[in-house]
């Protein structure tokens, strides 16, 4: 007899993912010590599966298990070892990237790569094989992982290494191959906590591709921000941001607490088309005045939105969707133009649109999202069916071009769209622990 789930987990109605669209009851447990994990996993069954979750920065339902059990791993946040000479760090899965940086930076080390938020756990970074502005030079987070501690329902806790098929299924495996207990990764040396950055504005999306060809290769960090509302000759106008680590500035880590917070949901009218347009134009103007070289600390450069706690509430009580696609290199330029045209024509403002060219590194994970090509990340406030229609239109464009969508950002794609983008999903499926599941996984494998 497995232990009784209802005694170990507490019911909650409050669990939401970052997009705040999916609302469902859950049963929640938050272990504070690793020895509390085993009974929680033993209580899960294929009929009543569970999911380990972290800081819930995934946007849709890949980090939710509606009407089921979830194990909040953020209480398992102890470092296990850090070698200041070699830069090898080993820590429990609930440690945030933010906490890693507090330890790494003063000793002259940095995360090998980082997504746009530091409020991501190591377990989440592995489960989603996260990427950042340096994908073209560093690959994904999984590329730096040397070992993993995994606890499955059908075996003793195990240590996985590169080359082991279960290791590669777990990287990018959406937390479904077992509960990730700890992660060991190789940090990278930095000369300072600052970057030598350069911002260059471009008049349209074709200019972005030209600029990247000319300048992209000589910078470790590249990404561009796009104004999605401009059409015609200005379709895809934006600002390209390039940077390398600076020799100057010292090794001071970031301040841990956000200074600003959005304490409640903004009213619905706050983000209508006019205000998004005004915001985008203002932001564009602001970036233009700053155009040229700068010397930012990593915190505002890599984590511009982390300084505002709960910025996701800016989209109001209905929440928002994030849409992130990747298109293979040959088709990338034309398809990106098609997508931007579809968005501009729909009049559905995207508050933030980011474009980034991925490098050619082979994916480390069986189900990793990044592949060689161009990725576009878009935010859409939830306006119901009109937003769904636009995203379905984009799905068709992406699928036709041989691209795929990022599960961490998704709460809505069809099983067909997912399977078309990830034909390897069936091979992955054999590694899924039968007592683990998520809203996302049930939807895309039905």
């Amino acid at each position, binding site marked *: 007899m497995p232990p009784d789930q209802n005694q170990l987990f507490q019911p909650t109605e409050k669990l939401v993912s970052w997009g705040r669209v999916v609302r469902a009851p859950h049963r929640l447990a938050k272990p504070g010590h690793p020895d509390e994990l085993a009974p929680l996993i033993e209580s899960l069954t294929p009929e009543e599966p569970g999911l380990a979750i972290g800081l819930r920065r995934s946007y849709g339902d890949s980090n939710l298990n509606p009407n089921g059990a979830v194990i909040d791993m953020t209480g398992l946040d102890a470092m296990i070892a*850090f*070698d*200041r000479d070699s830069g090898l760090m080993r820590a429990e899965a609930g440690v945030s990237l933010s906490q890693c940086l507090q330890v790494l930076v*003063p*000793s002259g080390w940095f995360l090998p790569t980082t997504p746009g938020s530091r409020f991501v756990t190591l377990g989440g970074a592995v489960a989603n094989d996260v990427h950042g502005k340096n994908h073209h030079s560093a690959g994904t987070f999984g590329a730096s992982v040397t070992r993993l501690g995994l606890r499955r329902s059908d075996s003793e806790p195990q240590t996985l290494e590169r080359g082991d098929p279960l290791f590669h299924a777990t990287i990018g495996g959406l937390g479904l191959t077992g509960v990730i207990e700890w992660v060991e990764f190789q940090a990278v040396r930095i000369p300072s906590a600052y970057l030598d950055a350069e911002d260059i504005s471009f008049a349209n999306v074709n200019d972005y591709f030209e600029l990247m060809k000319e300048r992209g290769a000589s910078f470790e960090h590249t990404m561009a921000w796009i104004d999605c509302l401009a059409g015609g000759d200005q379709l895809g106008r934006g600002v390209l941001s390039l940077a390398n680590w600076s020799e100057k500035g010292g090794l001071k880590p970031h301040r841990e607490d956000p200074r600003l917070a959005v304490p409640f949901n903004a009213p619905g009218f706050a983000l209508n088309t006019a205000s998004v347009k005004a915001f985008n134009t203002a932001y564009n103007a602001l970036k233009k005045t700053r155009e040229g070289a700068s010397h930012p600390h990593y915190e505002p450069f890599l984590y511009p939105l982390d300084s505002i706690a709960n910025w996701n509430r800016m989209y109001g009580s209905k929440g928002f969707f994030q849409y992130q696609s990747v298109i293979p290199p040959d088709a990338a330029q034309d398809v990106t133009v098609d997508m931007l045209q579809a968005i501009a024509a729909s009049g559905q403002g995207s508050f933030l649109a980011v474009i980034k060219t991925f490098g050619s590194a082979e994916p480390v994970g069986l189900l990793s999202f990044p592949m060689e090509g161009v990725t576009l990340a878009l935010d859409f406030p939830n306006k119901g069916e009109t937003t769904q229609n636009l995203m379905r239109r984009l799905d068709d464009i992406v699928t036709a071009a041989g691209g795929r969508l990022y599960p961490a950002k998704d709460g809505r794609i069809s099983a067909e769209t997912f399977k078309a983008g990830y034909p390897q999903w069936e091979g992955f499926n054999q590694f899924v622990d039968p007592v683990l599941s998520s809203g996302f996984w049930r939807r895309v494998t039905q």
Partner: protein
Amino acid sequence: MNTETETSASERAPPASNGRRVVILGALSAIAVATARIYAGEGARLLLVARNGERLDRIAADLRARGAASVDTAAIDLASEAANARQHLSGWVKTIGGIDHALLFYGYLGDQSAAQTDPEELSRILAVNFTSAAQWSEAIAAHYRKQDRGALVVISSVAGDRGRQSNYAYGAAKGGISLFIQGLAHSLAPTGAHATAIKLGFVDTPMTDGMDKSGPLWATPAQVAPMIHKAAEKGGPFHYGPWFWRWIMLIIRSVPAFIMHRTKL
């Protein structure tokens, strides 16, 4: 007593090492861990005390990785060993070479309704939170009087500011220890040492699991830890954590009994 000394040789000394020697009683509490991490980042030498040795080892590894110059552990039951506090302390002084700061975090929330019918439960709530804490504090103060310096911080609770039907056993013990530390701070005044009680409000820790933690009054361990660390530096007989509890408790203390008695507080 089970004292373990183990520092990985492969771990280079952290960049900023102030070498402060810190004893943490109740080192497995979530607030203690958050506070110890601040000391670790400064390169302090830490000695952690709590009951569960295996769990202490985990926190010790965490603090070493975060930059502590050294971390030792002692797995003892602080409540039952309080009568032998002086012997334990003299052993620990030998282990880490002295004590600059001592912080007492452990406590037992207990069950108020059980305490009303079960004398054992009542006695345990009072003994853990008041008697044993007072014994440890007095033993630490004795050490500080000899060296004419040192900081003692005891984690108390706003529950000690007014007796309320929902938790007066715990509240009385915490109110008692706050008063005790106030007096101890007075007695240490002629020396360079100081003692401080910190009256915490609602903090989201395993101790408070089962309470409704929504609402603006809840703080996280990471939010109150810097305050505790600062209080150890600066002294002062009382601190409220977070600060707004000072004003909330001023109001709660001022509510006349005939109104208070109509509430379920």
